[in-house]
C-alpha cells in the first residue's frame, strides 16, 4: 500500500504494460481514430472512383477491396473500439470504481488489436489482393472464389472477436461487481446500462461470427462443404449464421451511442433525462428483438413466405422501443433550458439524422418493398445514417463532452461548432442523394454506373470529401486542446452535467475512487 498514489510509469512501458483503465481507454480512442482515418481514406478512394461514370482511378477488383476494407475497418476498427475506449474511461468513473475489474485482460484485449489490423491491411499487398467480397463476406464468393488472403482475413476476424469478448467480459464483471455502495442498477447512468446490455450482446454473438469464419476456413482448406450445394451444404446457411451475428452487431454499435446522447442531452437541457426506466427497458427490448430479426437482411434469398412474414413483423416491432427512446430524448429537451455547445450540437445532429435512419429502417423492414430496396444505394444511405450520423456523431459528441474532464483543458468552441456544421452538411450531401439513386435502381458495390445516376453521385462524392476534410479539423482541435487548450480545473465542466465523473478533480487524476464515493440514497439516477 506504500505507493498507493503513484502516477503513470515513464516511457513506452507505461503504454505497453499499463493496466490503468484511463490509459487503456486513451489507447483505444487513439487507435480507433487512426482506423477511422484509414477507413475514411478507403471511402475517399471509393467516392473518387464514383465521382463520374466510367472507370477513373482504380480497377473493379481493387474497388471491391476498398469497399470490403472500408466496411471492415470502420465497423471493427473504428466504431467498436472507440466505444470500448469510452467504456474504459467512463464506466469506472461513472459507477465509482477504482478501475476495471480485470485490468490485465483489459491490456491484452487492446494490444491484440493493432497487430490484427496490420495483418488485415497487409492483405492489400498480397498476391490476389485483399478480401474483395464485401464486409458481409457471403459464401461462396468468400470461400471457393476468394483470393488467398482470405485465410489472413479469417484469422483477423478470430482475433478481433477474441478482443471484443475479453472487453465485454471485463465490462460485465466491472458493472456487476464494482459499483460503489448505493449505486443500484436503476441508479446507473444510462451509458453504463447501454454498455452492460451491449456487452451481453457481444458475448452472445461474437462466437457465432467465429463459427461462421471457422466453417469458411474448413470449406477452403479442409474439404468440407458447409456452404457449397455441390457437397450437400447451402450458401444461404452462411447468410443465416452471419446475420445472426450481424444484426445484433448493429445494435452493439448503436446502443452505446444511445447511452452517450442520454448523458449529453440532459446536461445541456439542464433537466433530468425523461423516462429513465423506460429507456432501460427499451434498450433491453431492442437487444432482445435483435436476436430474432436477422433474416430481414435476406428477404430476397428465397425464404418461405411464412419466414418472411415472421421476420417482417418482428423487425417492425423494433420501431416501438426505438420510438420510445426518441420521444424520451425530445421530452428531455422539452421545457428545458437549452444551450448548444458542440457536444449538444452533435447530439441533436444524432437525434435528427438517426431518426431519419430509423424511418428508412422501418421502410426496409417491409418485406415486399424491400424487394425493390434490397442491395440498392437506398440501403447504403440507410445504414450510413445510422452508423455515421448515429454512432460516429454520438462518439464525436462524447469526445467533446468529456475531453475537458480527461485533460483539464477546454477545446476551442468555435472550431468545434465549425466542425459540427461542416460535418452535418457534408454528411447529408453525401448520403441523402444516395436514397434517390437507390430508389431509382442503382445497386450497391458497383465501381461504375449508368449515366442517369451521374449528378447525384457527383454530389455524393463532393459531400464525402467535405465530410472527410472536416475530420482533420476535429483531429487538430483535439490535439490543440491537449497541448495548449485553456486550462480548467472546475470539477463540473458543464453546469448541467450530472454523475460521479463530475465529482472528481479536473483533469481526472490517474487513479480515481480509490475509496468508494458515498451515493445519496435519495438521489435519483444521474
Amino acid at each position, binding site marked *: 500500500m506504500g505507493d498507493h498514489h503513484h502516477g503513470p510509469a515513464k516511457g513506452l512501458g507505461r503504454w505497453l504494460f499499463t493496466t490503468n483503465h484511463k490509459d487503456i481507454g486513451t489507447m483505444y480512442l487513439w487507435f480507433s481514430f487512426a482506423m477511422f482515418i484509414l477507413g475514411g481514406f478507403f471511402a475517399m478512394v471509393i467516392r473518387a472512383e464514383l465521382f463520374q461514370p466510367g472507370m477513373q482511378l482504380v480497377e473493379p477488383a481493387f474497388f471491391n477491396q476498398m469497399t470490403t476494407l472500408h466496411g471492415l475497418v470502420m465497423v471493427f476498427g473504428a466504431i467498436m473500439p472507440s466505444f470500448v475506449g469510452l467504456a474504459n474511461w467512463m464506466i469506472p468513473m461513472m459507477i465509482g470504481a477504482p478501475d476495471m475489474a480485470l485490468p490485465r485482460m483489459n491490456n491484452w484485449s487492446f494490444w491484440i488489436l493493432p497487430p490484427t489490423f496490420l495483418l488485415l491491411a497487409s492483405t492489400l499487398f498480397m498476391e490476389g489482393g485483399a478480401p474483395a467480397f464485401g464486409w458481409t463476406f457471403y459464401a461462396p*464468393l468468400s470461400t471457393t472464389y476468394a483470393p488467398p488472403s482470405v485465410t489472413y482475413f479469417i484469422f483477423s476476424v478470430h482475433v478481433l472477436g477474441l478482443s471484443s469478448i475479453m472487453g465485454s467480459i471485463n465490462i460485465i464483471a466491472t458493472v456487476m461487481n464494482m459499483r460503489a455502495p448505493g449505486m443500484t442498477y436503476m441508479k446507473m447512468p444510462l451509458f453504463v446500462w447501454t454498455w452492460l446490455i451491449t456487452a451481453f450482446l457481444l458475448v452472445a454473438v461474437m462466437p457465432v461470427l467465429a463459427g461462421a469464419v471457422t466453417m469458411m476456413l474448413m470449406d477452403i482448406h479442409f474439404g468440407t462443404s458447409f456452404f457449397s450445394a455441390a457437397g450437400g451444404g447451402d450458401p444461404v446457411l452462411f447468410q443465416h449464421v452471419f446475420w445472426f451475428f450481424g444484426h445484433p452487431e448493429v445494435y452493439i454499435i448503436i446502443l452505446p451511442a444511445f447511452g452517450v446522447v442520454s448523458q449529453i442531452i440532459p446536461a445541456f437541457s439542464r*433537466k433530468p*433525462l425523461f423516462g429513465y426506466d423506460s429507456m432501460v427497458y427499451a434498450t433491453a427490448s431492442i437487444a432482445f428483438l435483435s436476436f430474432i430479426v436477422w433474416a430481414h437482411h435476406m428477404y430476397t434469398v428465397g425464404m418461405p413466405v411464412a419466414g418472411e412474414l415472421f421476420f417482417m413483423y418482428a423487425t417492425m416491432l423494433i420501431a416501438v422501443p426505438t420510438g420510445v427512446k426518441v420521444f424520451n430524448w425530445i421530452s428531455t429537451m422539452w421545457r428545458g433550458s437549452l444551450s448548444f455547445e458542440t457536444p449538444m450540437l452533435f447530439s441533436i445532429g444524432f437525434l435528427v439524422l438517426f431518426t431519419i435512419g430509423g424511418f428508412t429502417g422501418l421502410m426496409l423492414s417491409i418485406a415486399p418493398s424491400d424487394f*425493390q430496396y434490397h442491395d440498392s444505394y437506398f440501403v447504403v444511405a440507410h445504414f450510413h445514417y445510422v452508423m455515421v450520423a448515429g454512432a460516429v456523431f454520438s462518439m464525436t459528441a462524447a469526445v467533446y463532452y468529456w475531453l475537458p474532464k480527461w485533460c483539464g483543458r477546454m477545446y476551442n468552441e468555435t472550431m468545434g461548432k465549425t466542425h459540427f456544421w461542416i460535418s452535418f452538411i457534408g454528411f447529408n450531401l453525401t448520403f441523402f442523394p444516395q436514397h434517390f439513386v437507390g430508389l431509382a435502381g442503382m445497386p450497391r458495390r458497383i465501381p461504375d454506373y449508368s449515366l442517369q445516376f451521374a449528378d447525384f453521385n457527383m454530389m455524393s462524392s463532393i459531400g464525402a470529401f467535405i465530410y472527410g476534410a472536416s475530420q482533420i479539423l476535429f483531429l487538430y482541435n483535439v490535439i490543440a486542446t491537449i497541448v495548449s487548450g485553456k486550462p480548467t480545473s472546475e470539477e463540473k465542466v458543464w453546469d448541467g452535467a450530472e454523475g460521479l465523473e463530475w465529482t472528481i478533480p479536473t483533469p481526472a487524476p490517474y487513479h480515481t475512487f480509490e475509496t468508494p464515493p458515498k451515493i445519496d440514497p435519495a438521489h435519483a439516477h444521474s
Partner: protein
Amino acid sequence: MCFDAKRLLKRALGPVLILMSAAAMAAGGEVNQVNMSPGVTSVGKEIYDLHMWILGICTVIGIGVFGVMFYSIIYHRKSKGAVPATFHESTKVEIAWTVVPFLILIGMAVPATSTLLEIYDNDEAELDVLVTGYQWKWKYEYLNEDGENVSFFSNLRTPQSEIYNTQQKGEHYLLEVDEPLVLPAETKVRFLVTANDVIHSWWVPELAVKKDAVPGFINEAWTRTSVEGVYRGQCAELCGKDHGFMPIVVNVVSKDEYAGWLETKQAEAAQVKELMAQTFTLDELMERGKSVYDRACLACHGANGEGGLGNAIAKSPVATGDLNKHLDIGINGVPGTAMQAFGGQMNDVDMAAVITYQRNAFGNNMGDMVQPIDVFNYKKG
C-alpha cells in the same frame, strides 16, 4: 449562441419535402430520378403504393417529432432565459407513445402482408424461363413441356473503350446487352433463378422482380405486364470483379411478335444443329469466326488480336501452337484468370469458327482448321 434554428429546420425537413413532391413524377430509368418507379406490373404498383404509404406515415411522424424538437430548440433556450422544468416521467404519456406506434405498425403490416402474398403467388405461370447467373453474365433458357427449347447468354454490350473513357458513352451505358431476354406481354412469366458459380441477384426495377440466384438452389419469381417496352436492370448481389458489368435487358413484346421471335430462335437452333454435322471450308469458318470473335473475344483481346485485358492473340504461342491446347483454353478457360470457359456458352460451330479464325487471322496464318465435329469430340474427351 450562434445557432440558427431556422436553417437547421430547413435542412432537416427540406430533403423530406423534396422527396415527397418528387414522388409524383416518378418514372423508371429517368435522369436524376429520385423515387421508386411504380413500374409496369400490378405488383410493382402495389409495392410503390406501399412504399409511398410508409414514407408518408414516416414523414408525418417526422414532422411532428422534429416540430416539437425545434419548438423546444427555439423557445426553451437558456439564452432566452428559459428556466428548466423538473418533470422526468409520465406514465400516461409513455404508455400512449408505446401503444400508438404499435397500432400504426398494424396499419403498415396489413397491406404489406397482402402484397407479400401476391409476390409469392408463383402458380399458374404460362411461361417458364430459367435464369442462371454466371460470373459475369446471364443465361436464359426458355422451358417448354419437353424441357428444352431456346437458350442463350446475355452479355454486357458496352465496349471497354466507353468504360475506360476513350469513347463517348452511349445512352444506355452499362445497361445494354448483346441479346436481351424477350418476353410476351399479357403473360404470366415465371423465372426459375439459379447461379452457376457465386450468388447473383436478378433485378429489374420496372418489373418489380429481384431474386437471388443461389448456386445449387432454384428460386422462383414471376412477372406479368401489359406494357410493351424495354426494361433494364442489373445484378444486385456482389458477385466478384465485374459485378457492376452484368446488366439485364428485358424486351417485352406482343404475343404475336414473341411467337415470331421464338420461331426464329428455334430455327436458328435447328440450323446450328444441322451445321454441327457439316464440314466447312476455311473461308466459311473465317467469316463466321470473325463475327464470333468480335462479339466474344474482342473486348479483352483487341480488334486486331493485339491484346489488352487479355493476352495478345497475334503471334501468341497458343494460337500458333498446339491445336488441342488452343481448344482446351477456348472450351475450359484458364482458371484464376479473366479467361472464361466458353465451352458452355458457345455452340460447337461458333467455337470451331473462332478457333480457326484466331489461328489464321492477325498474321497467324497457321493454315489449319477446326470443324464442329472436332470441338464435339474434344468435349467428349
